[in-house]
């Protein structure tokens, strides 16, 4: 239920940002919206409690819904986010994402990873690609915007986690970013 709520929240947020982002008076940054999918997949991977599969399931569903929202071929973002989730799960026992600076840095990391993975998926599946300079520009701008919005989005996810906590201790740990 917790994963489903996070996925639904991410889906809603992605729809809102897709509709709003290009209208914001933020110049060049408006070209590339924050990678909500990457943040969600990374959060699910990083906070996977009972194994990797449920988190990846959430990431795949998020990716699939975002595929439908953004009009990319079904499965493209699902695969990319599944791989992003695996990478985030791999970092789970090595780093603790806590505090604004760390959240910003980790958001930037997952946005870059998702961008590179997306490019790799496109290459492997023979999908159309832009010029390398343009791809790089999108990755850089997307990483910047994801870093900007990373902390509030993760805070929202932690609140959802806290809402599903069974004990006060779990709740505090979720809000502090100490989960799992």
């Amino acid at each position, binding site marked *: 239920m917790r994963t489903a709520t996070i996925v639904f929240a991410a*889906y*809603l947020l992605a*729809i*809102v940002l*897709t*509709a*709003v982002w290009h*209208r914001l*008076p933020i110049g060049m940054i408006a070209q590339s919206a924050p990678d909500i999918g990457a943040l969600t997949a990374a959060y699910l991977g990083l906070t996977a409690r*009972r*194994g*990797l*599969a449920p988190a*990846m*399931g959430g*990431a*795949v569903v998020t*990716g*699939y*819904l975002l595929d*439908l*929202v953004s009009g990319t*071929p*079904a*499965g*493209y973002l*699902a*695969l990319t986010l*599944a*791989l992003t989730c*695996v990478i985030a799960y791999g970092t789970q026992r090595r780093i603790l994402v806590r505090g604004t600076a760390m959240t910003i840095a980790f958001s930037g990391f997952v946005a870059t990873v998702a961008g590179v993975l997306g490019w790799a*998926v496109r290459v492997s*599946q*023979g*999908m159309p690609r832009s010029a390398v300079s343009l791809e790089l520009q999108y990755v850089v701008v997307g990483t910047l915007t994801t870093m900007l919005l990373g902390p509030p989005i993760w805070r929202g996810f932690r609140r959802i986690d806290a809402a599903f906590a069974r004990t006060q201790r779990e709740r505090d740990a979720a809000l502090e970013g100490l989960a799992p």
Partner: protein
Amino acid sequence: MTLRRRLLDWILAGLLIVIPALVLRASLSARSPSRVDQAVLRVTAPLQAAVTWGANLVGGWWGKYVALINVEAENRELRAENEKLREKLAALSRRAVDIDALEALAALKQKSSADSLGARVIAAPMSPEFRVLRIRIDRGKSDVSVGMPVITAGGPVGRIIKVFGNYADVELVSDNAARTEVVIARTGGRGIMTGLGKTDSYACSIEWLERATNPEAAIKVGDEVVTSGLGATFPPGLLIGTVSKITGDDGMFQSVEVMPSVDVSRVRSVLVLLAPPPPPDPDAKNKKRSDAMFGARAL
């Protein structure tokens, strides 16, 4: 977590990578969305439409009202820029007019065999009705002298009546003191055109124009008036104006009003004809006509 559960977890995770990859491959080869995609879209599309509608509503409100804060400053900047560009355009237009006038003057100078000198109009006193009464040019004692005719490509302007320092005043053909020998181009009727000296127009008049017995030869409104060359002020054949009104007709003579061809209020540069009118010869009575006419001594 037991080994079996861990193994199962990794197998499921592997499947969750393989399945999207297969879905992606299938969707790349398919031309339209699958049934599953269509079903999901049918459920999610209303939500997406509602959110987009709300965002557009807020975005529209933002764009129409809040974002207009900067528009005011931008508008001010654009107005200032527009003002500058208008000034520049006006200056360039004035320059273009000057250049046109100078080109016409240069062509006239080339065409005319008379020795002439270009001059710029530096002042033009006006009547209360905004009609130029006289013009001042930037040529003085060293260049011009009293009596020299002043013309433009459009026709005669007047003659120099005063020279002082580096400047000279030109009496216009429309001045009430000006007298110009003219000919009606169509009929050949001669007369003396005098300025009416009006402060609200440049009108001139010709009195005592002999009326031809042939009705076709009578002067009509619109007839062109040219200089006759007599009176030694202007060279012959210059268009000086057009008959604008027949003011009198007593059966023998006609009086007409003439509108000069040159709009003096727009004149920026002129040509001064340097051949002055011949001075009166004090020995004229003593000279034998044959000397002057043929240059030969009488027997």
